[in-house]
């Protein structure tokens, strides 16, 4: 049985420490880039946290010109769009994250398949302060 906690609060707690952690099933080996208290692949209850490299490739993306309220408050909008996407991590699972370090108005800078690495973006003040997972173009090896 699981002895560790696997809530989203744990996941975002790792992010606040600038760590991307995944939950791996000790029964079947399935890996999720989410806090999963049970394995949806084999119904196993024995999960464990595992650090993820944050390296991956862009699987799908968009450039958002009409943002939700939270991103409007972060300064984005029609004249300041941002890129967000789904990143296929080298370890297997995929995860959503804002793509930073690119010019959102220059679609030539972003392409499906481009190599990315995780980075961490902190927004808000006081109790609302929160760290978000993001990705940036991978630095040259």
């Amino acid at each position: 049985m699981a002895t560790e906690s696997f809530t989203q609060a744990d996941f975002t707690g790792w992010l606040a420490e600038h760590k991307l952690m995944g939950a791996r099933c000790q029964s079947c080996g399935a890996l999720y880039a989410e806090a999963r208290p049970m394995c949806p692949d084999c119904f196993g209850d024995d999960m464990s946290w595992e650090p993820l490299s944050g390296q991956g490739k862009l699987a799908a993306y968009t450039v958002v010109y009409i943002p939700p309220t939270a991103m409007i408050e972060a300064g984005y909008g029609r004249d300041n769009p941002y890129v967000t996407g789904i990143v296929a991590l080298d370890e297997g699972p995929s995860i959503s994250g804002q793509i930073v370090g690119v010019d959102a108005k220059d679609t030539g800078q972003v392409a499906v398949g481009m190599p990315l690495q995780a980075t961490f973006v902190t927004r808000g003040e006081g109790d609302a302060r929160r760290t978000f997972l993001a990705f940036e173009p991978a630095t040259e090896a």
Partner: protein
Amino acid sequence: MTQRKLGRGVAVVGAGMSQFGTFPEKATRDLFVEAFREMRASVDKGLDPRDIEALFIGNYSSDLFEHQGHTAPIMADWVGLTPRPAVRIEDACASSGVALRQGIMAVASGLHDVVLVGGIEKMSNLPTAEVTDTLATAGDVLYEIPAGFTFPGFYGAIASAYMARYGATPEALMRVGIKNHENGALNSKAQFNISIGGIMQARQASAAKKGRPVPQWSDEMAFLQDDVYNPMIAWPLRLFDCSPITDGAAALLLVSEELAGSFSDTPIAIIGAGQASDRALPNRPDLTSLGAARHASQQAYQMAGVTPQDVKIAEVHDCFTVAEIVATEDLGFFEPGQGFVAAEEGLTARNGLRPVNTSGGLKAKGHPVGASGAAQVIEVWKQMRGEAGPRQVDRDVDIALTHNVGGTGQTCVVHIFERR
């Protein structure tokens, strides 16, 4: 997968909808009464509303859109049906497609003989940013929304994966919008009862009236490529790739097949039903197809004993243009990667090889999210009965299909209909 059958046959014997659009003066219940009235009038041999035994109402989020929860009993009251059981069903934009499924199960089980299936949504009270926030709650609020995803953003991402894999262009997506507006121009109930060409003329007239330079475009595609008149919403999706914010309601009358003849000369039997769920986008193996749509349609085809080639027309969930292209592949009308080619070649046009969204679809008819699934059935009902007026297709529609998606495909529900 075991082949499933309904316990007994179920038929649609009445179908009606409100006007779709934005109506500041109307609440959800007012729209539902409009739909109920039209449904009642559509029953060939008349309907005594007292014969209705239960209500199944699809609604995504009256709580957030109107600050009104517990909506179903209010609908029952406003059409005079208390104390009959009334239940609200929520599966995002598939809410009333799923309500239809629940109504079918209630009749097929023998629990009820006559039920009302409804769909309702009143979206226009909120400013656009709050509508965006509300729709985004149909995604995963813990893992997707913090990344800045919006609903157009999700489908923009699907489009990016589709374009990268198959070489489709944004212009192929625009073909879907042009086609659906052509159909919507022939649907007086549509929010956009106007073609893209008509919208271009309106923009020119508006500029002239204001004394501004009158914009010129060589054709509809040039208009849709214009960053000013068709602004980017979520690359590669522009304004005219997106379904609008809509207020509307729909109502369907379902009865057991043995009773159908006492209500209608031309009942529409439900011969196939399927529904499936799926994980959020990042946990799917393929971002160019909706697994739930493939599962749901396979269930429906198996139950109905028909193939995709037997389907004469389909109403599919074109919340965004790319979604229609993916839908036509998931439903087996075209091979993977061929849906955009079919759109470019006009195969899904009203009198093309496989007419899709003759109503104008969610794009032009409007997308009051919780009402869209039930409203799809109204188009099928009209086309199968030869009552679609100026947009009636040029062939006999004996078999038709509806495809209703919730979220980005975490839910899909498919129904297949046959005229008896």
